[in-house]
């Protein structure tokens, strides 16, 4: 639950900071009693004014989240600088195929003549893109449907939206994907995002709905309702900001799932062979018998990369979870 910020009564005495200027009092402030382990102050208690930790401080305080953020930053850099980092082009198939790792090809070449290292580096782009876009699409749909349905729990709107959600949950995913992919003229990022969003929004939507039902009866919502605000305004201007950390963690979860979904889709043959992504590399490695031919790296490298990217996102999510669930804080403050 989001920490509620209720103003506390001001302390009797306010310390004077060194500069002689009073602190800005536009934000609520909590007072804490701290023992200052200073030679001078060993017999005194000093009342310090400490602000509640800002959201980035909370996230950064978790070691896991720190690692995750650093890893993400590295991946993002690699994605942006892909052309600079690799000597070859990912669409250059002129090399001798099936070479083992060597000085000229650090990870070797695959059976079609592409340099594996180059493909691996450039694959970061698409995996990132599908994660961000797929996660975004999923969570946006889930929020709209889930929040509206949950706020109006029990009404006709809820019935319709819940019905649609349940249906989306039980729809046969494999034939549906095949139909969508078969009828689309081109394969590419847009198609992947669409398929991922269509197949994943329902689960997240249910969670959003359950969440908002539990938040709906808070006092500030009742106040807004009596104040005359309409449903949409209440949902999106009052409740949602308080759920922001949950929404962000939902987005990160959806992004992780989108990356995994792309790998699965490509593996089943629904991806776009014209593009380079880690999922495509896995699919090609398997279809061309990488293990059987002894081309280990081709199969292992993209799999490890996928797991690392998803892990970094999950780590960041640990940090974000701490925003909404203060009990998880005070971790790893060693």
């Amino acid at each position, binding site marked *: 639950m989001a920490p509620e910020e209720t103003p506390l009564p001001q302390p009797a005495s306010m310390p004077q900071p060194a500069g002689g200027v009073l602190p800005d009092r536009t934000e609520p402030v909590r007072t804490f009693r701290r023992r200052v382990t200073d030679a001078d102050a060993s017999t005194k208690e000093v009342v310090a004014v400490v602000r509640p930790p800002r959201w980035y401080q909370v996230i950064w305080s978790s070691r896991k989240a720190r690692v995750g953020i650093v890893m993400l930053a590295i991946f993002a850099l690699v994605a942006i600088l892909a052309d600079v980092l690799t000597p070859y082009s990912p669409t250059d198939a002129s090399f001798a195929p099936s070479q083992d790792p060597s000085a000229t090809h650090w990870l070797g070449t695959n059976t079609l003549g592409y340099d594996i290292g180059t493909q691996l580096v450039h694959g970061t782009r698409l995996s990132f893109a599908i994660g961000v876009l797929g996660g975004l699409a999923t969570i946006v749909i889930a929020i709209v449907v889930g929040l509206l349905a949950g706020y109006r729990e029990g009404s006709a709107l809820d019935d319709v939206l819940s019905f649609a959600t349940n*249906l989306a949950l*039980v729809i046969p995913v*494999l034939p549906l994907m095949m139909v969508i992919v078969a009828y689309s003229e081109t394969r590419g990022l847009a198609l992947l995002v669409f398929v991922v969003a269509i197949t994943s929004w329902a689960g997240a939507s249910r969670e959003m709905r359950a969440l908002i039902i539990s938040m709906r009866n808070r006092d500030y919502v009742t106040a807004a309702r009596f104040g005359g605000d309409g449903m949409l305004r209440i949902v999106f201007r009052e409740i949602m900001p308080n759920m922001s950390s949950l929404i962000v963690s939902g987005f990160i979860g959806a992004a992780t799932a989108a990356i995994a979904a792309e790998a699965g889709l490509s593996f089943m043959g629904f991806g776009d062979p014209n593009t380079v992504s880690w999922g495509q590399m896995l699919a090609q490695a398997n279809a061309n018998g990488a293990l059987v031919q002894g081309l280990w790296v081709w199969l292992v490298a993209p799999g490890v990369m996928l*797991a690392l990217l998803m892990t970094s996102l999950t780590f960041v999510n640990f940090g974000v*979870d701490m925003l909404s669930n203060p*009990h*998880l804080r005070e*971790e790893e403050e060693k």
Partner: protein
Amino acid sequence: MVYYARKTGYFLLTLWAAITLNFVIPRLQPGDPAEIMVTQLTGRGEVDPAQVAAIKTMLGYGDDNVFVAYWQYLQQLAAGDLGISFTYFPAPVIEVLGKALPWTLVLVGLTQILSFVIGTLLGAVAAWRRNSRFDATISVGSTFVGNLQSVWIALIVVFLFAYTLGWFPATGGYGYTDPGTPEHIADVVAHGFLPALTLMITAPIGFILSMRNTMVQVLGEDYIRLASAAGLKERTLALGYAARNALLPVITGFALSLGVLMGGSILIETVFDYPGMGRLMGEATSNRDFPLMQAILLATIVIVLTANFIVDLIYPLIDPRARKASA
């Protein structure tokens, strides 16, 4: 009372809508079942029109008006007739399902339940011993391992343990034993070991993490502090109070995950040549085997909807807070 009536009504309506979608979506896929079948039988790129025509007649999906076909389908369904499979002609769909279902139930069902038990246990212990090395190892380790693609793991596992080391059989649900003999059980277990191992590597992560998070939150609640201050033993506190309450949301997740049972394991079953429902579903989809696809989807829907329905029904019983239905 109204609550239960509404839930039942919902269930039936969703069932009908899902059945209709299951009828429509497979038929939207491009591709003719007879042509696909002939290509497979002859193994050639070009297709003999005489064979295609004969097989089309045999399968009997004809040129009926789609509404007529739909109405016939509903009638058959009401009479309990699931039709005859195209791929396994003339075996009826029910026979085919009956042969594939036990394998999936045993393999995927068992691993799901085991994952649930192990996952929640590990998550609970990790939450209880928060910030210890155990917790860090579990959280970090299970995150990385759980994010590995299960197909990727399957390929490596089978290559390593079955072909390179030769410890376990690589393919099949069983091998040389006859069903009904005692050694058949050992045979089945031996064949199921590697697929189960693959599934168990990735499945528990969701349960571990969600259980840990929920439990940490529950542990921070006041009543836990009160009980601890009152002198209740650690283990009683952990298992009897905290874990039980933390389990509630995790159970809903488990019920939903049962839907994974049916189709989700197709890739793994293909790698291990395991004769389960996932593989059957993939096969039916590639072959445009309408009767089989419809039946499998129906079975999946019924299982998922029923599981959710049951959870919805018993949830008010186990969580008193939810008894206060929408006012």
